[in-house]
């Protein structure tokens, strides 16, 4: 086979250059997603020169996202952000659904408080949200450089990172510090030698359909009014594959999708769209989405394993934030990403400001990043919940417990006249036996859950 040319945007590998005495810019932030925009915003506000590189034509142009944006971290960056942020709906209804192929048990919580300032979470389109956040960074003085991909690192005399190579002609850019927010498959963190756990078992594949429905139909089907929104997290909807599902309401569309263990998906031979089709056909979901028109389909890797897959978060001349640093919380009842991206990006920006002020971008100084993260939810939650991803993806939680719970509830609510009702304990024993759950499994997983969530 003849060696082909390197495609545009493909990695270029590290290049050595003499350490620049006057770099082009103080900081290069690679990736204008929520993490990168937050880092650039903090740096620009501190008066530092920042280039915010974005490979798409505008921030958020990839538009792969199926979640709720939790805004408390934004309070610290953009006070009263809710008055201007481009949200679709404010989530006032949070449902956790446990499913088998024919059954569903939903714990459905709703509160009016989440529909008022300062709000709890919102659905949003990433092209709108990311562009809005990046606009704040630009307004503060950051320079957004779109349609430009960082394809490699520049290292100086002592091996420290002093910039990036881009895919443009004469595209080398030098800086005192690089912040890699280049997403889940961070080529820069890998190239810097910071990524030690790229194994497939740590990732899931998120696949999402956006289904258009009239606004009033969405409000009728989901029991919403005005800008109220619903967030359904689902477990047990991916037969034979560890993962889960979700439904989020936008203003005039509904996002329905699945999150799938890569290894299970490969073993199953199934395709993600088959599983979404199965979810949409489920009796508990079909009435919510029937008649909707598919307008988008997308898929994206998710750094699922939390603390267990995190790269080293700093190196000489470099910090890692957002999905690139595995700052995505997939802990069953808590599925959060954008807030962790913003939180880690903000801290990266703050530590970068300190480093520039001290004139020290060595790994030793930048180690403060990890310490600072530990003092915030961005890393503290991952440490606390480090056992959660494995528990959530276990066969018991994925398959046996949904069967157990649904069978138990069905037998509880099935009226068996003229046969007298059985006691709840007996029903529970029968349901456990039927679903293959052993008492010691329950005890072990209960203890694990207590340690994680307690």
């Amino acid at each position, binding site marked *: 086979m003849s060696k082909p040319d390197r495609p545009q945007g493909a990695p270029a590998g590290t290049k050595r250059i003499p350490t620049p005495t006057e770099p082009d810019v103080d900081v290069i932030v690679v990736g204008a997603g929520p993490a990168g925009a937050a880092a650039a915003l903090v740096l620009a506000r501190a008066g530092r020169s920042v280039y915010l590189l974005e490979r798409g034509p505008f921030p958020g142009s990839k538009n792969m996202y199926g979640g709720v944006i939790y805004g408390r971290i934004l309070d610290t960056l953009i006070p009263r952000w809710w008055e201007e942020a481009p949200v679709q709906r404010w989530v006032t209804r949070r449902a956790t659904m446990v499913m088998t192929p024919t059954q569903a048990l939903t714990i459905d919580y709703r509160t009016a408080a989440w529909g008022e300032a300062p709000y709890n979470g919102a659905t949003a389109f990433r092209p709108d949200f990311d562009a809005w956040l990046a606009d704040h960074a630009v307004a503060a003085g950051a320079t957004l450089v779109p349609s430009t991909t960082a394809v490699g690192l520049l290292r100086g005399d002592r091996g420290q990172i002093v910039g990036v190579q881009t895919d443009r002609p*004469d595209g080398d850019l030098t800086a005192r510090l690089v912040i890699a927010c280049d997403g889940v498959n961070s080529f820069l963190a890998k190239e810097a030698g910071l990524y030690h756990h790229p194994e497939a078992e740590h990732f899931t594949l998120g696949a999402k359909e956006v289904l258009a429905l009239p606004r009033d139909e969405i409000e009728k089907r989901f029991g919403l009014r005005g800008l109220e929104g619903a967030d359904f997290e689902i477990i047990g909807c991916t037969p034979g594959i560890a993962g889960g599902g979700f439904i989020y309401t936008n203003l005039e569309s509904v996002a329905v999708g699945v999150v799938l263990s890569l290894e299970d998906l490969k073993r199953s031979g199934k395709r993600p769209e088959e599983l979404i089709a199965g979810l949409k056909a489920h009796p508990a979901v079909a009435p919510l989405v029937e008649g909707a028109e598919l307008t988008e389909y997308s898929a994206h890797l998710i750094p699922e394993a939390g603390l267990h897959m995190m790269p080293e978060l700093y190196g000489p001349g470099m910090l890692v934030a957002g999905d690139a640093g595995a700052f995505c919380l997939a802990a069953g009842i808590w599925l959060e990403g954008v807030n962790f991206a913003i939180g880690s990006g903000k801290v990266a920006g703050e530590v970068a400001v300190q480093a520039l002020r001290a004139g020290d971008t060595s790994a030793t100084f930048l180690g403060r990043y990890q310490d600072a993260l530990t003092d915030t939810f961005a890393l503290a939650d991952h440490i606390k919940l480090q056992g959660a991803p494995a528990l959530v993806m276990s066969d018991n939680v994925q398959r046996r417990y949904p069967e157990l719970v649904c069978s138990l509830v069905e037998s509880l609510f099935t009226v068996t006249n003229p046969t007298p009702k059985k006691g709840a304990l007996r029903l529970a024993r029968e349901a456990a036996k039927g679903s293959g759950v052993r008492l010691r499994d329950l005890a072990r997983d209960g203890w694990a859950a207590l340690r994680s969530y307690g």
Partner: protein
Amino acid sequence: MAEPAGPAGPTIAVALKWVDLRPDIDRVTGATHHDVRFFGCSAADQAALEHALRIGERFGWPVVAVSAGPAEADAVLRDALAVGASAAIRVDIEAGARSQHSAAALHDALATIDGLRLVCCGDWSLDRGSGSVPAFVAAHLGWGQALGLVGVDLDGDAGDGAFTVTRRLDQGRREVLRIDGPAVLSFEGGTAELRRAPLAAVLRTRDAAIVPLAGPPAPHHRLRVVHRGPDRPRARVLPPPDASLSPRERILALTGALVERTPPRTVVCEPDDAADLILDQLRAWGYLD
């Protein structure tokens, strides 16, 4: 204008339209929703710009980018400056102006360029374009128009400042024209890939001030649009394949298969071997260490 239009002498102007590249068109009602973030230059305008730059480089002529549109159209002019245009002029008219109005506005811009020799355009715009603007511009200038161009030959010994172009005619025919004087050239999309702008040029031109010229008044016509049907997405135009190729080769060229890239291979093997092959290829491309 970002910079003075350059010294007197042969100058090339390239007309660029700021247009929605991905309009969201309701298939039932035809209602069109525009998102300003997806606006830019059509493939035909990009091809025109690339051809203009190549002609300019061949003969040492500067290229001036012109556009008729609202302030947001400055974005396509800055992009043109980044890839090598020496100056940019925008005439301020509203988006969606009719062809005669756009052409008159472009002519106002062209009138400020000393030594104008060529005007390069895309053949038609992506929105409701019918290809009439280049013809109107040619009429304003009193020049000839070469339309439907699919190639430029700058290597031939055609004389000082002269070159040949190939244009597509109906029924697959081709015609070669010699251009040795002022002319309006309109290019089909896909006939040249616009070069990537160097990073320094992108940074230098991102805030380039483009002082707009006041646009002419909209012309009054006895013909008025009284009804307009729904928009429909435009078909993507592909460059015609080389007529000397066999039918099979022409189909391959049209579909993009086996053309200007490493030919794909079909292998039948076990999954493990397939994975090894994929990894080898990723290594060859530099994705893996």
